[in-house]
């Protein structure tokens, strides 16, 4: 038996709006959006970042706490490694991401900032870990 990390799926109220937001605010690009508009994957290499409509949770028989901007963020984050985190932060905020913490340099040399996306999910914008 082998196992590998396949993908992360965020359940969101509007898949198409979320994909557009991740393109505009974070500069990712879409891999595909299913014709039902209930599932989409971003172009993030072998481990996909995916979005599914909240209604899919119910259809699949499980229950989730919906992600909402006005709610406390869920206990997870999406970390995006950027070539220029300060610039990425400004771009995200001007596209409508909620500012949480502007990028700052950590003792280990990495630059790290946080915003919340259109659905209230926590997104880290950081530089690559120094070699």
């Amino acid at each position: 038996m082998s196992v590998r990390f396949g993908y992360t799926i965020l359940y969101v109220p509007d898949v198409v709006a979320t994909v557009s937001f991740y393109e505009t605010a974070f500069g990712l690009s879409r891999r595909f959006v299913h014709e039902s508009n209930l599932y989409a994957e971003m172009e993030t290499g072998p481990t996909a970042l995916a979005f599914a409509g909240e209604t899919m949770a119910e259809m699949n028989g499980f229950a989730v706490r919906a992600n909402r901007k006005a709610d406390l963020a869920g206990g997870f984050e999406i970390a995006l490694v950027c070539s220029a985190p300060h610039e990425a932060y400004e771009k995200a905020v001007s596209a409508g991401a909620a500012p949480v913490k502007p990028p700052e340099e950590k003792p280990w040399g990495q630059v790290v900032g946080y915003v919340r996306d259109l659905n209230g999910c926590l997104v880290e914008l950081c530089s690559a870990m120094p070699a």
Partner: protein
Amino acid sequence: MTLGRYTELPHLADANAGIEAVWASVSRGEGTYRVLPDGRCDIILRFTLNAPPNSELMPIVTGPTTGFYDVALEPGSAFVGVRLRPGYFQRILGLEPIRLKSGALVGEAAKNKWPDLAALCAPASDQQELAGRLVQFVRKRDADSDFEVEPLSRNTISALHASGGRLRIAELADMHGLSERTVRRIFLRATGVSPKAFAAIIQFHRALRLLRDHHLSPADAAFEAGFADQSHMTRVFQRMGGFSPARLPEVTLVTISQ
């Protein structure tokens, strides 16, 4: 078209026009059919299945219910219906769903209220034709309606659905930056029932699926569905379905999802 007791016709559903499901049901024998509360309103055509063309069609518009009820059936009693998404009852029929709470407008009463229902009752060659007519009826009224379904209403109801009815109303209000009073108004306007009653319906449906489709034990189902304990779940099943979780009867569980 051969139909069992209750069949959904997924290719006819049209979420954009407010149609959550199109369904048909035919009674093979005499007896009663138990309708479980689903927090939805339906537009239904009832007829007797004999040699086509089907005639003596009767329109029925049902309001939201919070408990089960039984419908008496004779052999050949048949129904074709559309189930409307929350928020669309008023958009399509111009009436707040709360006005029909735990009730229905049947036959002449429905035709008096909505005269264009009469055209749906002309003889038809089969149920497919009736289903098509119902869909066209809803689509036309959707296109002509100037009553908008508020996005906030959609989002709030969607979050409660996604949680399997487990969010407390205070939490639901907080996470959308609303007061509890506003959430209550949203649910009453969109569904005709209070948010608490709507949550209970979703939780009941989910628990029923966990037992019937996921084959969980009653203890595991009660835990996952968010009941305080198994006896709490049992009380809710008695009240909403009239049966015990330990002995599930053959009931129809309709598709409700936002």
